[in-house]
């Protein structure tokens, strides 16, 4: 009935006239009694009268709701009391007799409302819900009247009222004066008595929630902000929705949230909402949906779809501020943090870490395929470079709408999401192509750099797949890479950052790279986890291959080591933080990817010297400062510089050719003595454990102190005597350095000489005793006469007269031979006018058993550290297990670089000469000369000649040399072939081919230390002797010519020899008798060099390992070169040396050899391997059972 009239009202003329009535103010009167109220509200067909009654009632209700018991005075309170009684009496008098579901409360008002509906009176249609909303609000505050309130609510659920509500809710958009009070009334009803009728109300949702979404869209219009007392239908609708969501049961919530239009409308206009409303909405949704564990996940997902999340993320830019409310951007951030990172909120889905959605990490792949194709057998391995299918697509959408570079909070949100959904890292940067890392000194670039820093700092997902163990197959390399160095951090951008004129940009890039290398290290270690081999052999190889790929890709994406070195060199002296970071980065390269680091031929000594010099200067400054005001110099700066020094010392340990005992232009003293000086003169409170460790290592390695295995505390003797002297008379110490430096340097150049001197000093035949006394003592005796003659002899002798008794005393306390020391003391004493005193001042307390007593100021902290460094028992080597064959293979077996790739025959033709030389096409072609097929070799030869002429005709800078190399190689091949029968031309020896390949790399770089040698070799004649090993003599026995490049040249030679040892014919060349001895013999001698660094030594071991793979190789090594006893000697040598890098963790099992333990394990593994592969009968016969005894 009502509906029809309503429709008529829209079309006819009548309602339009009535619309104007809206503005007529209703009349009212003051109510004194309940009776009067009842009369006023009694149904009256006269609409004006009804409106008068309702308005009077409204005023009464308003006054009661406005009361404030705390501030109102007694009179007012009494007035309120009376007014409330009027209402109470009225309600009780109109209460239906039978209180059941169908009973109608407030029958008069309901009838008025119904009548208003029939005649379509909008004033009344608005006035009734206004009054009912107020009344319900009032009743909700009174326990006594709650039953009546509930009755009224139930009345609203009756059919007639439902129809009216439905009609009012769907009134014309412009009729806010009807819609808003109806929503308010519903809100009061749904909240009433703790949501007592929320359930039946939801059952009647067809009318109660009518047009809810539409009403949420009726926003306040106008320039003024919305008046809190006259809220818009949107505000009322949201408040009704929030109350409903609070009191509804979980199933109902689910159904409500399934209404898409409602969910969309919730946040569509959120940007314009008042702060209090936004807060209510965010808190309501969080408390009653997100964190309600009973609400099904599906419902939460419906609410938190991409649109909602993006709308809420728009609140990061919300500008309205309310004084006493928390900030909206902060609240939105908290909401999103909960919504996006808490898996129970329905947004976050469990992903499988670095394995994208379509990649099955445990897919079964036929082992034949795996063997043949390796990683290529996994179909998805290379699939995710441009697109990553993710499970968290909602979050993926959200992330693209955020701007981490301009807001800390957004950056935090993204990285928090990355942490719980690692699959999104690669996805985010693949999609977000627009933003590059091109350096620019702006807030945005810095923000982006900070965001990338945080991203790289995130740990890799556990086992890559976030499972309880590793999957069968390794994750896609590109995805792992994107996690280590996200796409914007490419080589070009990073290089430009490092070389940028703004040093801060370079600093930021350096810090990110440090994190990236550390992460790479973790990733590689995870790839090499022993767990992979426990499953099946195939997987281990796959993972190893993946690790190799990862390192390769990293090198392609990170800037070149040379750029890093140059960047480091260009940092000003005073930029300590920057210097520290740059040195740390280099150190990490040496530790994690030494193959790249060593390629740069970086000579660390000048930088080390600079750092040492700076530290000595800082010490001096400190002294002067403390005499003056002392405010300028921060001792923390010294500690920071020391960290840079530690990094450099570590690099020095890794790089070949560090000369510890050679004085340079920069320093008056040798690096070793300078380091000693830094240690002794360091300000108190600075921890010097790493410096001390290096001093120990170098001193033991250079045999300045007796071997450690006799229980000698090594360099500590010197350090402690100096420290003591430094405390008592620092001036004496300062004058001693030049003298000590001379003695130390002499000691290292001719240790045997001084041992003999000691022997002469002591009783004949007491060889054991001699060995326990430091050769330094003899050097001092020898140098004393010269010191006495020198210009500054007085001060030096004065200093020595204080130092020597202490030093020798400490030596005696350290367990050195006392008679010998006393003899030495006597002989020293002669050079002093007054002699040296009666006897050695042996410390009463044993200084090395309890050096922690804090004898000298400030040594406390370093000594505590010493307990770990020195106190650590040097493993005798006996308890270290040999590597098993798999591990040994991983450490020592390098792929055959001359392996034939026949496509090289064709590929080179389309390339420019630059590409041929620089990108390895020439090398691939040369390698084909080693092919087992005669036809391929022939083809290769022809192509090499063609290439030679192409090179010669080009503009390439080094064209002459490359042409010469190729032509001579071809000529050599021709000459060799001519000397053999036509039917059976054998390939050239691999050494010749490997030499040619490696020579190409020398020729393209004129700064290469071997450049002169290779050139002079090439100009010697038109072809090479195939029986000789090119350049072996030149490198092994001639002067290195270019500075201190001996070790670098050796490295080159060993690399080419390793590539050149493939067949039994090659093996012959290695053991053939030559003027300076067979090549093998010379290589073993080279590796016996105690100063040679581990990487080079391992290279020799690799050559031996390669030999064991060739028939008869092991037998030859044992019987002709005594390799078993050679390895035994190496093992013995290791036992007596203190390992510098011991604390840095072992890696032999994982493919790198860092520590002494690793080395020992490798040597033992090789021994085992040789025994397993040799002709045992022959070896046994040869050694009369000795070899077996050693191995067992």
């Amino acid at each position, binding site marked *: 009935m009502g509906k029809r009239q309503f429709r008529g009202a829209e079309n006819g003329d009548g309602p339009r006239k009535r619309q104007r009535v809206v503005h007529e103010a209703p009349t009212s009167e003051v109510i004194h009694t309940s009776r009067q109220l009842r009369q006023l509200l009694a149904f009256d067909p006269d609409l004006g009268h009804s409106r008068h009654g309702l308005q009077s009632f409204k005023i009464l209700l308003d006054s009661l709701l406005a009361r404030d018991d705390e501030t109102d005075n007694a009179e007012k309170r009494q007035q309120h009391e009376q007014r409330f009684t009027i209402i109470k009496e009225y309600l009780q008098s109109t209460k239906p007799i039978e209180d059941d579901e169908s009973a109608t409360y407030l029958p008069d008002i309901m009838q008025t409302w119904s009548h208003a509906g029939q005649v379509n009176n909008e004033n009344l249609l608005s006035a009734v819900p206004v009054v009912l909303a107020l009344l319900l609000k009032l009743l909700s505050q009174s326990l006594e009247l709650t039953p009546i309130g509930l009755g009224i609510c139930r009345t609203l659920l009756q059919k007639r009222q439902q129809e009216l509500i439905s009609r009012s809710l769907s009134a014309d958009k412009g009729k806010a004066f009807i819609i808003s009070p109806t929503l308010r009334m519903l809100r009061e009803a749904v909240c009433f008595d703790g949501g007592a009728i929320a359930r039946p109300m939801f059952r009647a949702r067809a009318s109660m929630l009518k047009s809810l979404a539409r009403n949420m869209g009726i926003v306040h219009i106008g320039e003024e902000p919305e008046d809190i007392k006259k809220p818009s239908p949107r505000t009322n609708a949201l408040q009704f929705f929030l109350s409903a969501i609070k009191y509804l049961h979980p199933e109902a919530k689910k159904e409500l949230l399934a209404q898409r239009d409602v969910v969309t409308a919730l946040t569509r206009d959120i940007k314009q909402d008042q702060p209090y409303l936004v807060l209510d909405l965010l808190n309501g949704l969080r408390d009653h949906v997100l964190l309600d564990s009973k609400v099904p996940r599906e419902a939460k997902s419906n609410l938190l779809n991409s649109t909602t999340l993006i709308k809420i993320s728009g609140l990061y830019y919300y500008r309205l501020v309310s004084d006493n409310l928390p900030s909206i951007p902060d609240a939105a951030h908290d909401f999103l943090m909960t919504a996006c990172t808490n898996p129970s909120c329905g947004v976050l889905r469990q992903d499988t870490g670095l394995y994208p959605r379509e990649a099955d990490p445990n897919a079964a792949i036929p082992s034949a395929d795996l063997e043949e194709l390796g990683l290529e057998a996994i179909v998805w391995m290379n699939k995710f470079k441009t697109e990553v299918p993710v499970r968290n697509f909602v979050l993926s959408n959200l992330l693209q709408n955020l701007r981490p570079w301009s807001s*800390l909070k957004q950056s935090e949100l993204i990285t928090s999401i990355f942490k719980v959904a690692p699959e999104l890292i690669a996805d985010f940067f693949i999609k977000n192509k627009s933003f590059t890392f091109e350096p620019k000194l702006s*807030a945005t670039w810095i923000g982006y750099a*900070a965001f990338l820093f945080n991203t790289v*700092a995130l740990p890799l997902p556990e086992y890559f797949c976030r499972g309880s163990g590793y999957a069968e197959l390794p994750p896609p390399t590109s995805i792992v890479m994107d996690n280590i160095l996200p796409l914007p951090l490419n080589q070009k951008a990073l290089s430009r950052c490092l070389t940028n004129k703004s040093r801060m940009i370079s600093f930021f890039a350096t*810090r990110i790279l440090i994190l990236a290398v550390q992460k790479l290290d973790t990733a590689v270690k995870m790839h090499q986890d022993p767990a992979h081999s426990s499953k099946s052999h195939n997987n281990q190889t796959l993972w190893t291959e993946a690790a190799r790929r990862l390192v390769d890709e990293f090198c392609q994406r990170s800037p070149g080591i040379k750029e890093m070195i140059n960047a480091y060199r260009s940092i000003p002296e005073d930029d300590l933080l920057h210097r520290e970071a740059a040195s740390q980065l280099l150190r990490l390269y040496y530790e994690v990817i030494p193959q790249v680091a060593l390629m740069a031929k970086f000579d660390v000594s000048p930088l080390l010297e600079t750092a040492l010099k700076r530290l000595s200067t800082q010490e001096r400054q400190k002294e002067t400062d403390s005499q003056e005001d002392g405010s300028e110099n921060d001792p*923390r700066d010294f500690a920071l510089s020391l960290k840079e020094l530690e990094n450099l010392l570590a690099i020095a340990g890794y790089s070949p050719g560090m000369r510890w005992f050679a004085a340079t232009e920069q320093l008056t003293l040798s690096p070793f003595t300078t380091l000693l000086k830094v240690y002794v003169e360091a300000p108190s409170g600075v921890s010097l454990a790493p410096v001390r460790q290096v001093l120990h290592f170098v001193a033991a390695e250079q045999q300045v102190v007796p071997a450690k295995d006799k229980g000698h505390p090594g360099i500590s003797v010197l350090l402690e005597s100096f420290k003591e002297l430094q405390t008592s008379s620092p001036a004496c110490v300062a004058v001693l350095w030049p003298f000590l430096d001379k003695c130390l340097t002499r000691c290292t150049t001719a240790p045997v000489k001084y041992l003999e001197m000691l022997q002469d000093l002591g009783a004949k035949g007491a060889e054991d005793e001699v060995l326990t006394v430091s050769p330094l003592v003899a050097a001092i005796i020898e140098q004393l006469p010269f010191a006495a003659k020198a210009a500054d002899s007085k001060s030096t002798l004065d200093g020595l007269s204080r130092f020597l008794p202490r030093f020798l005393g400490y030596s005696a306390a350290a367990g050195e031979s006392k008679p010998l020391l006393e003899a030495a003391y006597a002989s020293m004493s002669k050079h002093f006018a007054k002699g040296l005193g009666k006897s050695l001042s042996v410390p009463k307390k044993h200084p090395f058993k309890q050096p922690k007593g804090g004898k000298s100021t400030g040594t406390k902290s370093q000594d505590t550290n010493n307990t770990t460094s020195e106190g650590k028992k040097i493993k005798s080597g006996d308890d270290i297990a040999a590597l098993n064959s798999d591990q040994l293979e991983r450490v020592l077996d390098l792929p055959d670089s001359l392996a034939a790739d026949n496509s090289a025959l064709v590929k080179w033709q389309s390339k420019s000469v630059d590409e041929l030389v620089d990108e390895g096409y020439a090398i691939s072609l040369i390698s084909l000369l080693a092919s087992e097929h005669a036809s391929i070799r022939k083809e290769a030869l022809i192509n090499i000649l063609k290439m030679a002429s192409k090179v010669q005709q080009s503009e390439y800078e080094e064209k002459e040399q490359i042409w010469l190399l190729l032509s001579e190689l071809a000529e050599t091949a021709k000459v060799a072939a001519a000397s053999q029968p036509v039917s059976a031309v054998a390939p050239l020896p691999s050494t010749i081919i490997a030499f040619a390949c490696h020579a190409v790399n020398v020729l393209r770089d004129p700064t290469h230390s071997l450049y002169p040698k290779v050139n002079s070799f090439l100009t010697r004649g038109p072809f090479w002797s195939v029986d000789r090993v090119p350049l072996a003599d030149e490198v092994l026995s001639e002067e290195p010519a270019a500075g201190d490049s001996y070790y670098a040249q050796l490295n080159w030679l060993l690399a080419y020899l390793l590539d050149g040892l493939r067949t039994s014919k090659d093996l012959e060349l290695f053991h053939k008798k030559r003027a300076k001895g067979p090549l093998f013999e010379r290589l073993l001698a080279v590796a016996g060099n105690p100063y040679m660094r581990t990487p080079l030594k391992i290279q020799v071991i690799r050559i031996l390992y390669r030999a064991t793979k060739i028939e008869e190789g092991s037998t030859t090594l044992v019987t002709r070169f005594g390799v078993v006893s050679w390895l035994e000697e190496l093992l013995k040598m290791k036992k007596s040396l203190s390992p510098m890098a011991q604390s840095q963790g072992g890696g032999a099992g994982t493919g790198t050899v860092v520590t002494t333990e690793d080395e020992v394990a490798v040597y033992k593994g090789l021994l085992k391997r040789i025994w397993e592969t040799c002709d045992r009968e022959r070896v046994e016969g040869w050694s009369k059972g000795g070899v077996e005894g050693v191995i067992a």
Partner: protein
Amino acid sequence: MSDSKPKSQQEVASEFTSYYLQRATKEFAEDLDKVRTADDFKNDAIHLLVNALQQGTALFSPEEQRRIVETAVEKK
């Protein structure tokens, strides 16, 4: 010498952070001035900048931080 009571890790971290920031602002003073005059430098950019600078403290282990901070303690 100051009191011998060892500092809590939190104290060390906060002291180290302030030292790190102090050093960084000294070393990059010129660049920081340039950033401040850049077009995109708005109100909250200062937080962004400070935050970005102090991230680097994460590259120092707690022991290293302590070592550096406690050097200052022993200052005579």
